[in-house]
């Protein structure tokens, strides 16, 4: 079944909710954001919330501890800042603090990412920041089957999972926040990310398992989210110049699939491409994983070095693009 990215997620949730009555959803505007689920599962299981993220994200921790399986929605991941205690000091700590005797099976679903000119308070990725909190898994699907499969896995997980839905892939988010129904604005939407084939019921995709999108021997791109599509584009350009690229889609930021990273690094030239902040994030962690394991090849990274600017042309320069990836690759290839 060919579906959009957003539909894939919805199908996975719908399937899981039909199977498991303990799954409930709450967050702002979920009665309309999830109108189909609302119509099917009713107001007892899809519960709109006030703009009180710290209360309802904190509540999600308690709900999960007490036997339900909540999907709690923080509209844009940027807003998680107002509720960060629930993540940093509660959700991620209960299992350890209880000596492993109590766990928090909560799914925190947020949209993330930029590319539509909404500036740096609404376009952050933050998978690096969230990953820096031990005890939480962070998944970032880049296409419909992964979106569905990772949602199913998140709903089966025993511990907190932050599920990040990139706005460039998610048609309704991009329409709400970017297009607003206009036909005269354009976004660089990766085709193969925005729609694709899924099975019904969708197939699980394991958390912590990266996926090789392309095998190659000259250079390796390690990336996540929308940027993997940029890497694929760049690798096509490189192919024309006879450089063969390996592209690894991490799919999960935490836990990192170290094995696949090491396997991918065999080309001896690694470019990490990360739409999130460059410093103190995913690209650093990958560098450490590589260095620790004895990798001695070339390493470079492409990422966002600061606040995401508003103007589209400035934003384009700030976020990783096919061009900037290509440039970085050329440099590391020494050509």
């Amino acid at each position: 079944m060919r579906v959009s990215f957003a539909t894939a997620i919805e199908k996975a949730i719908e399937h899981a909710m039909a199977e498991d009555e303990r799954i409930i959803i709450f967050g702002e505007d979920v009665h309309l954001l999830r109108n189909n689920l609302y119509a099917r599962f009713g107001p007892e299981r899809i519960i709109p919330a006030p703009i009180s993220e710290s209360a309802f994200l904190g509540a999600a921790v308690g709900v999960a501890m007490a036997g339900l399986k909540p999907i709690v929605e923080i509209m844009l991941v940027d807003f998680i800042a107002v509720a960060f205690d629930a993540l940093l000091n509660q959700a991620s700590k209960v299992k350890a603090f209880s000596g492993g005797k109590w766990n928090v099976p909560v799914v925190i679903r947020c949209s993330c990412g930029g590319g539509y000119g909404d500036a740096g308070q609404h376009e952050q990725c933050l998978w690096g920041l969230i990953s820096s909190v031990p005890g939480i898994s962070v998944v970032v699907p880049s296409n419909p089957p992964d979106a569905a499969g990772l949602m199913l896995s998140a709903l089966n997980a025993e511990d907190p999972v932050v599920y990040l839905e990139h706005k460039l892939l998610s048609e309704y988010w991009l329409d709400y926040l970017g297009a607003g129904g206009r036909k005269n604005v354009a976004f660089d939407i990766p085709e193969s990310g925005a729609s694709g084939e899924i099975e019904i019921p969708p197939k699980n995709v394991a958390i912590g398992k990266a996926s090789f999108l392309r095998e190659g021997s000259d250079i390796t791109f390690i990336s996540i989210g929308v940027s993997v599509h940029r890497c694929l584009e760049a690798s096509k350009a490189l192919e024309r110049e006879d450089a063969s690229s390996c592209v690894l889609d991490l799919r999960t930021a935490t836990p990192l699939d170290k094995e696949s990273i090491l396997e991918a690094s065999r080309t001896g030239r690694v470019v990490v491409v990360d739409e999130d902040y460059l410093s103190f994030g995913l690209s650093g962690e990958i560098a450490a994983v590589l260095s620790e394991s004895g990798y001695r090849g070339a390493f470079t990274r492409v990422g966002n070095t600061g606040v995401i600017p508003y103007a589209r042309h400035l934003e384009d320069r700030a976020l990783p693009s096919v061009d900037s990836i290509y440039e970085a690759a050329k440099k590391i290839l020494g050509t």
Partner: protein
Amino acid sequence: MILLVGGRLGLVFFLHMSLHMAQRFCYLSSVKTISKGDHMQGERKEVQPEYLYRQMVRARRFEEALASLWRRGLISGELHLGTGEEAIAAGFAAHLEDGDAIALDHRSTPPLVCRGLPLEPIILELIGSEKGLCSGWGGHMHLFSRDFLAASSGIVGSSAPLALGFALANKHLRQGKVAVCFFGEGAMNQGMVLESLNLARVWKLPVIFVCKDNRWAITTRSKNVTAGCLTKRARAYDMPAWKVNGLRVDDVCKTAKRAIERAREGRGPSFVLARCSRIDGHFLGDPLFRIFEEPLEQVKTITPPLIRSAIAKPGAPSGARARALFCISKAIALAGADKLKNFKDPLFISKNLILEEKRLEIEREVFEEIEKAVRTSLEVAGLKR
């Protein structure tokens, strides 16, 4: 049976829809007629109705100009218009002076316009020019003017702590100067706003909390997620709280004067709940709104999966499903109401505050002012009109 339920649910949905489709034709009369005006330059200190009216028209015309730039694809991201809030912006800004600060939310342009910021830098900013107010870095949710001590933010509720900071600095550096803080009724459920009410009171800060109650937070009717009454909530922090009809600029202006003077005199914070409306939806292109504007197309894409879900098994009992569907259609139906009703438009309501002749002159002048600002900005940015 399933079909029957499905049918019934569909019915509820369409009933709502058609009801409001009908109302739609009452439209086309109000705001758009205001377009000529009177030449009386309002005295700032005395706050003449002419001044207030002019400011409101300036704010409205400015929003409309932005909307048209947005429709041309020149403004990116979410654009939250402040149409329906002009009386609040004008009423408060009228009492502000050099050194006073304003902290704003995502509907920041009306207060900035009324506060007297030059318009071109704002327009340039919104069309993403590096010559803009913030060099193209901020955009509509992050407009900053150091000169006017004005700052906005897209995080709901964050204007409140910011205002406290402005007020505290004013207390130290600019005695008698205040900070005014704007946010929506939805923000009143955000912890930092509630904390700020308390902190303002215990630190006795010269800050005025202006809660613009348009009854909506995106697609949520705020009354469904807000317990109790908001003025009581504020009063529980031991500060005066006034309810005012935020559609009436004269009422707002009076209350604003009182609250601001109180703060200037060092008598601490206060809270104003100003009912207003949300004429253009949550943001431009609001999907709830679009159902009115292109009903057939929207209903065609929304309805089939909705009805399919509403009858799929297993799921909630049919009563619960009916309630859900009802709630969805009600939200859609209500969303457009603010646009449709003259009595919800502060400009329409204020018309009779001044003589028709003057009014028309003001409107004409403002029309020209905004036109010119847009023209200049587009020129500066190298875009055609």
